[in-house]
Structures are given as structure tokens and as C-alpha cells.
């Protein structure tokens, strides 16, 4: 089967599967919003400072809040179909715009963290697999378990203490030097300096997972016939490890990386509050503190969509990498 057809098939299947999930999430989101204490009219009255019972009723009927729940659900779905997530009275702007403003920051942070985690994890995992059962393997495996047990916000604070306070090498928070007018390469370098610590604290947790996963799948591949053939051909051990074993061991890693997008978004909420990084996570934190549930649920909805998109992307990458997958 030609590769393009295979990918198209996978795409169709993934999209069909995603529809009920998206609907379920939207409906769940709506009911959570209903459960939240106070509605938009309460929030606006609170912001205004005072309101009579009549003006509250007027506000409610203006926003359709006095309709039956199912009618409101219809309105909510209709709004979503027009890409409207509601209005945030606190920020005085539509929630969708607010999220669009913060999304790039979180995405770059996550991309860097994922890259660090995969690179470091694969290196550690390959080392562990090459020394399987011996001292380096045991030591590294305890180390990776330690990484897995450290809360990201705590290691974030400790990195600040060490690298910003004691050594003074890296900034302790923010997203760029304020008032600097750098452009081009210096601007990127400046940005990178601010991203190193948050991305590292977000990545450490996942380093452990990738290291163990790489180790397990490399050990599994190691015993297969084509590896023995490669050795028999007289290839160097490093060549066999890098080109035959590792390459085949990478498929479960891409699967896991797709599954981790949701987890990383959650981790970003905490890490961004530690480093005051202007992303979705900080926005979520501010929304929690301000009890701004429209924003909070908008973030929840949008991040679930992001997870679905990431999973679809992984499926497609798989169909492209491995001909056996699309054929089903």
C-alpha cells in the first residue's frame, strides 16, 4: 500500500474515533462550569461592586443564564462551534484571545522540555541497557527512580537557589530581559537563558520514564535475530546498538511522548508558577486565584484538544514509520 494512502486511512480512523471523545469532554466541561459556585452575573456584580436583585435578573436574562440547562448547553455548543470560549470579566477580553496569547509560551516550553527529556532519557537508557544487570545499570536505575520521585516545583526552586542565587548564572524567572531591544540570534539566546531552568525542571520527571522505557525496549530488541545477524556480519557493537537496536526501540518512545503531552501541560501549570513564565499554566493559576472559571474551563477544554491533536499526530507518525500499522 502506498504510504500516502496508509496515512490518509489512519487519519480518517483517528478523526472518527476522536469525535465522541471531544463531545464527551465538551459536555463534561459544561457541567463542571454549571457546578462552579456563582455564574457570570455574580462575577460581574462582584466586579461592579453592587447590584440589585432586579439588575442581576436582567443580567441573567441577557446572558441566557435563566434558561433551562439543556438550552444553555445548546448555546454553549453553538458558541464553541464559532470558536468562542466565553468572556473573561477579569481580563476584559474573550477567553479564546487570552489563551491564544499564552499558548505559544507554553508550547515552546513543552517542546524544549520534551526534547531534553527524550535526549537525556535515550542516552541514559542506552547506557543502562548496554550495562544491563551490572553496577552502572543499577546505579542509573536508582538515579532515574530518584528523578521520578522529585516534585517539579521543588526541583525548580532548588535550581533557582543553586544557579540563580548562589552562582548567579541564570535568571530566576520571567521570559526575557525587560526593556532589551535584542533582535536575531542574541534575542533567541536571551530567551533560551530564561528557558533553561523551567524546561529542565519540567523535563527531569520524564527523563526517568524515557530512560526506563529505552532500557526495556532495547533489551527486548537485543535478543532478536536481526541483531545477531548484524553482529555476525562483523559490525561494531556501537554500530549495532545505534543503528539496529536503538532505532527499533524508538517506536514505544514516540508512543509515550504523545501520551505525555497532557501530563506535561499539567506539569507546566506548576513550573510556570514557580518561574513566573507567561504561559497557559500561569494563566490557569491566576484564574484559580481569581476564581475565574470561564478561563479555567477554557484552558481545560483547549488543552484536551491539544492532547487529541498530539495523539493523532503520533498515530500518523507511526503509520509513516511502520508499514504494518496502517494496514489494519
Amino acid at each position, binding site marked *: 500500500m502506498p504510504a500516502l494512502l496508509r496515512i490518509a486511512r489512519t487519519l480518517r480512523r483517528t478523526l472518527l474515533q476522536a469525535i465522541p471523545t471531544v463531545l*464527551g469532554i465538551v459536555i463534561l466541561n459544561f457541567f463542571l462550569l454549571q457546578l462552579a459556585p456563582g455564574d457570570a452575573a455574580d462575577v460581574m456584580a462582584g466586579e461592579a461592586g453592587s447590584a440589585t436583585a432586579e439588575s442581576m435578573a436582567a443580567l441573567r436574562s441577557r446572558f441566557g443564564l435563566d434558561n433551562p440547562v439543556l438550552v444553555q448547553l445548546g448555546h454553549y455548543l453553538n458558541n464553541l462551534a464559532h470558536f468562542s470560549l466565553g468572556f473573561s470579566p477579569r481580563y476584559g477580553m474573550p477567553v479564546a484571545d487570552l489563551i491564544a496569547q499564552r499558548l505559544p509560551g507554553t508550547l515552546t516550553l513543552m517542546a524544549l522540555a520534551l526534547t531534553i527529556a527524550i535526549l537525556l532519557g535515550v542516552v541514559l537508557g542506552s547506557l543502562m541497557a548496554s550495562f544491563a544487570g551490572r553496577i552502572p545499570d543499577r546505579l542509573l536505575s536508582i538515579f532515574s527512580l530518584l528523578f521520578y520521585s522529585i*516534585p517539579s516545583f521543588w526541583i525548580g526552586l532548588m535550581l533557582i537557589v543553586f544557579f540563580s542565587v548562589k552562582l548567579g548564572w541564570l535568571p530566576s524567572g520571567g521570559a526575557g530581559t525587560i526593556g532589551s531591544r535584542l533582535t536575531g540570534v542574541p534575542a533567541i539566546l536571551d530567551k533560551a537563558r530564561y528557558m533553561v531552568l523551567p524546561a529542565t525542571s519540567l523535563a527531569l520527571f520524564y527523563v526517568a520514564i524515557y530512560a526506563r522505557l529505552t532500557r526495556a525496549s532495547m533489551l527486548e530488541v537485543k*535478543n532478536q535475530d536481526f541483531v545477531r545477524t548484524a553482529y555476525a556480519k562483523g559490525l561494531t557493537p556501537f554500530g549495532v546498538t545505534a543503528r539496529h537496536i536503538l532505532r527499533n526501540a524508538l517506536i*514505544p518512545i514516540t508512543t*509515550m511522548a504523545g501520551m505525555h503531552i497532557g501530563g506535561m501541560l*499539567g506539569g507546566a501549570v506548576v513550573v510556570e508558577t514557580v518561574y513566573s513564565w507567561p504561559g497557559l499554566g500561569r494563566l490557569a493559576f491566576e484564574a484559580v486565584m481569581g476564581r475565574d472559571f470561564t478561563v479555567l474551563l477554557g484552558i*481545560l477544554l483547549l488543552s484536551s484538544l491539544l492532547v487529541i491533536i498530539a495523539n493523532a499526530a503520533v498515530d500518523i507518525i507511526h503509520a509513516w514509520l511502520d508499514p504494518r500499522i496502517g494496514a489494519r
Partner: protein
Amino acid sequence: MSTTDVGNFRSLVAEREATAEPEAAAATAAANGPAWSNMKAPDARSQQSAAVAVTNGRRALKVFLSNPNALFGTGFLVFVILVALTAPILYPDDPLSMVGRPFLWPGQNSAYPLGTDSLGRDVLAGILHGSRISLFVGLMATALGLTFGVLVGSTAGYFGGWIDDLLVRLIEIFQTLPSFVLLVVLVAIAQPSATTVTLAIAVISWPTVARLTRAEFRAIREKDFVMAARSLGYGHARIIFREILPNALPPIIVTSSVMVATAILMESALSFMGLGDPNVVSWGSMIGTGRELVRTAWYLTALPGLAIVFTVLALNLIGDGLNDALNPRFSQDR
């Protein structure tokens, strides 16, 4: 912080194994030769594991007890549990009350071995009392999530058909929602308290268990002894709980120790963000209050964090030990 990534990974592996098992079992039945101890080919290994798939409790215990890491983990966990139980006896006063001069560094005053915070509260008393809420939330949330997850997963896996389709959709919805974001939303809506935090963590942790249980049940329900039970006229409930569940337990037990660890991490992250129970001292909230002073008094952040790291590490070491003991296929290469 993600919920149950290692849990996920393990359930993934278990799922893959579970689907592979019927074929492997058929292969064993066909071959039925002696179990070669030095077989290295992958198909031969799966045959071997199918032969020893019935977990021997005493053997598992022996493997677990001969693992120094797991023993260390168990020892440390027992120590933390003892601390949690005796904290009200050792420090009967409210750990949130001011007792001494503020900003005493650890070792400066022997009355407060770990120093005092910005309000003059004893750090050691806080850490000892903090273990109570961490363990409570971790254990209760896991128990709840485990119960619900096993119920859903066994129903889906045992009955199959449209019930299965429906429940799998439900599981998928919960696994798509980023768990920590959902957790924050739930706790923010329900107002933070020890109970709501526990319930919310249970809500986000059951899907992993449900998936794992479902995979195990689907594999086991085709086995001969289940068919025998069915032909004896046993009811569904009896087959599920007395026949299949005991055989599906090993991977669930392994996952549960990792679940306690993640629940503790989540609780600490929540209370760090100010979404914990405001009336009890917790490790996360101690870090949260120490955070503003991290430049000058970093010990206020470091010490409760170490308590979290070691407790969670102990639970993960136990989980690893259980995995080696209960899952013979994994322990072969070690």
C-alpha cells in the same frame, strides 16, 4: 506533574502481554516440552512466562524480600507511617502555632533542630505533622481510585459488547483530559479541603486502573477455569470477584504503590499552589510559604521537599520490587 506515567507504561506493557498470552498459552500446550533454562529467543521466553504465569505468593514474597532496594523502601515507608502516627504525641501542640524566634537556621537552637520559619513556627513539627496529610490523601485517594477503577474495568472486560464500548469511551475521555489541569479545576470548584482533594485525586487516577483491569479481564475470561466456573452455573458476580479478580491482582498491586506515590506528589503540588486544605500543615504548603524567602532562607523550602522526595522514592522502590516479584517476565533480565 503527570498522574501515572509509569503506571501507564506498566499497564501498556501488561496490556501487550495480556493480548499475547492466549497465543503463548496455545504454543505451550502444543510444545509442552521441558522448560529450557537457557532459552534466549523471544518467542521461547514468552512461552516460558506463560508457563509460570500463575503467581506463587511465597515465591513472590521471597523475591521481594531479597531485593535490597525494595526492603529499603519498605523500611522507610514504615518509618514515615510511624512518624505520622506518633506526631501528635511527639509534638502535641498545633504545628501552625508560633513557638520561637523566626528564621532560626537548622542546628542553631537545639530546641528546634530543623529551625523555625518566618513566623517562628517549628519546621520539624511541621514536617512530622505534614506526613499525616500526605499519607492520608495518598492512601485514601488510591483506595478510592482502585475500587472504582477495578469495578469499571472488570465490568468492561468481563461483559464486553456495548457495555465495554461505552466504558472504554468514558475511560478515554478521562485519559484525554490533562489530569493535573482537571485536578486543579475540580479542587477549585469544590473548595479545597482534605476530603475534596482526596476525592479529586481519586477521580483522576481511576482510569489507569480501569484500563489495566479491563485488559487483564479480557485475557483471563477466555481461560478454561472461567469456562468451568460458568458451566457450573456460578453467577457473574461470583465469577468476577472469586474467579477472575484474584488472578488479575498482581499488576493491579504493582500499580497501586505507584498510585500512592503520584497521589502524594499531586497533593503536594496542589497545596504548593495554595489549593490544599488551609487548616492543616502539609509538605507542599510549607514549600509554598517558604518560596518567597527562597533567596535568604532556602532551608524552609529544601527540608519539606526532601521529606516528599524520600517518601515518594520509597513508594516507587516498593513498586519496582513488587513488579520484579510479581512479574516473572520482567525479572528474567536482571
